[in-house]
């Protein structure tokens, strides 16, 4: 058995071993072993020059990462949570994502930024939001959301090989996800979506921390005779539309599920794309299940009530199929 956390650590170890231009930088990644213990033990193994603790200054160390990437290194920058990444948004949007374009193609920024996202651990509003859509909005970035052990293990190296900046979102509730990972598990692509469960009546489109919830919902729906297909987007920018369209044109019904807020978020993007391209194959309005539009509450029952839980997904699917009209 291995965990999502171990799989990511293993992917970092692998990258550090394969390429001496790779180094890890961020708050508490060294002596403390990472805020979520992802990099535990790596400082001892690789030394201070490659596992670098930084001051509490996101704009500073993300900027340093951009500079290192421009200078020929392959930095992995860890930001503790997506909420804190807003301090570095200027660096990410105005520098990392724009330099290739503004230099007329002369300079690319081979930078990988990892950050934790999502709620569910009673860390309250300032540590729990899902702001992936902020980054999925930006041309010049590739945005990944590993939701399985295989993706946690395999996406980092492919991202490091990308000549342009890649942002990887790790959902906080996934770190303890356990499962079997083959010892030879290797790199995976970072362009396609994946069908995680085949089905015929409705397509649940999701990613990241909502994938396990959607799989549970599909299981519950199966007990009622509703066959739900579950698609893991894996890549939030650029989205793999074909996999989604192929599925929806078969099931004729779609539910978009995201832990971000509903308004102007990723569910809106998914629904718009499906309606633009599959309109005449739709047999029901596209459903959306997202987080209630409040700052994520601290209290456990309120936090759970705000999130897109299994029951809400089941209800949306039933409505699409017409069982509970």
């Amino acid at each position, binding site marked *: 058995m291995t965990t999502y956390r171990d799989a990511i650590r293993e992917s970092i170890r692998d990258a550090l071993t394969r390429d001496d231009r790779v180094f890890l930088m961020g708050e508490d990644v060294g002596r403390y072993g990472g805020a979520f213990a992802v990099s535990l033990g790596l400082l001892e193994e690789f030394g201070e020059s490659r596992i670098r603790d930084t001051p509490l200054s996101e704009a500073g160390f993300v900027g340093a990462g951009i500079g290192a990437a421009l200078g020929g290194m392959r930095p992995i920058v860890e930001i503790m949570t997506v909420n804190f990444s807003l301090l570095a948004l200027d660096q990410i949007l105005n520098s990392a994502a724009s330099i290739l374009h503004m230099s007329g193609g002369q300079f690319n920024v081979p930078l990988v930024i990892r950050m934790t996202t999502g709620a569910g651990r009673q860390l309250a509003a300032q540590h729990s939001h899902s702001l992936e859509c902020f980054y999925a909005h930006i041309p010049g970035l590739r945005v990944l959301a590993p939701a399985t052990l295989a993706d946690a293990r395999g996406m980092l190296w492919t991202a490091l090989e990308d000549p342009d900046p890649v942002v990887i979102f790790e959902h906080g509730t996934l770190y303890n996800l356990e499962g079997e990972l083959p010892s030879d598990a290797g790199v995976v692509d970072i362009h396609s979506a994946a069908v995680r469960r085949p089905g015929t009546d409705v397509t649940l489109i999701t990613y990241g921390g909502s994938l396990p919830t959607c799989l549970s919902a599909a299981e519950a729906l199966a007990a009622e005779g509703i066959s739900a297909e579950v698609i893991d987007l894996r890549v939030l920018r650029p989205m793999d539309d074909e996999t989604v369209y192929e599925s929806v044109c078969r099931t004729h019904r779609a539910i978009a599920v995201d832990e971000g807020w509903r308004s102007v978020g990723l569910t809106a993007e998914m629904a718009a794309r499906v309606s633009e391209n599959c309109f005449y*194959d739709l047999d029901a309005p596209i459903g959306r299940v997202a987080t209630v539009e409040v700052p994520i509450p601290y209290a456990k029952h309120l936090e759970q009530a705000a999130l897109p839980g299994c029951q809400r997904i089941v209800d949306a699917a039933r409505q699409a199929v*017409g069982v509970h009209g």
Partner: protein
Amino acid sequence: MGDFRMPSLGADMSEGTLLEWHVHPGDAVHRGDIIATVDTSKSAIDIEVFEDGQVEELLVAPGATVAVGTPIARISDGGLHRDVRAPEAQSPLAPSPEAQSPAAEAPKVTAPAVESPAAEKVVVGRPHASPLARRRAAELGIDLGYVQPARRDGVIGVGDVDARAAEIAAAASTATVTVPPAPAERPTREPRQAPKRDEAAMRQAIASLMARSKREIPHYYCQQAVDLHLALAWLQAENSRRPVAERILPAALLLKAAARAARSVPEINGFCVDGSFTASARVHLGVAVSLRGGGLIAPALLDADDLPLAELMTRMKDLVTRARGGRLKASEMSDATVTVTNLGEQGVESVLGVIYPPQVAVIGFGRIAERPWAVDGMLTVRPVVTVTLAADHRVSDGHRGGQALAAIEAALQAPENL
């Protein structure tokens, strides 16, 4: 092969009405087989299939009108059946069609889309229906007002449309066929009736095409009188040796001469699309056929320039008969590269035609009549026909047009070579 779509059978066709299927699910089909008859408002056209395969499912019921490009049947690659997926996962709408085992699902034939008398309107006005349900209803010719929604919110889903189709099928005497009969056991089909023609629709189609022609194509015209005494004398001698069924009409000679001219002057034989002309290497001669009771249709005599005269005559007779009976093939409707109008049959002295877009020329023959004719300084009487050419000035000039007419004249002076 996958979806077989409603073909475009001419520049003026935007939709077609499926009149009849000639195949059943499970039937093997071969390139060139006629699988359906479609009404295009100008004529009933027999639709050929272009690849070998097996009919999986008929998606459109007779009587339904669908847009050009709409899938009307699913045809699998011949014999390559793979059981890729459970049959219930199959859908005619999947972008990547996969063959299904013929045994896995009983093929279904949808009955004509008639409303069963017992049905009552469920909704007055525009019913709420999903986009897919609306599309399926249009394909099957089903009135959504008669469809009972199963959903609690009252919105019609595709399943409701399918249920209604099944209900109609059960009500009609041509009930759902679950197993296609072996070809030998299939009951003999009723002799095919000429389908009823919608004359108003045909008039509208002609109006729109001819208005487009006059709006877009700068026509120029030339004409020439041609002495036919050699041609008719040769024909008379030829016909005196032939039984009635093999006699050749002067019209066949004129068509052959026109086809030869089209081959020698490529600027009048081809298509002009978006201002750019492409000459055709083959000559498919559109033959304007007037229809009893009004209307006009110009199906193509394929490769007319290569046909021996007797063969051309046989084909022409067949084409005229089928055009008037409303039984043309798709390729005959869409492939003409230049058209001939033969109004002289009805007595006019000459006819200056209107070009069928996207073609670039129309050749007209007037009545063959005896006229005074000067030969070597002497006046004599000869059978004469006035040949005209209307051609597209974007593609050719009058000089080239004149050469085409000269080529027709020359051909008619050596009928034995036609």
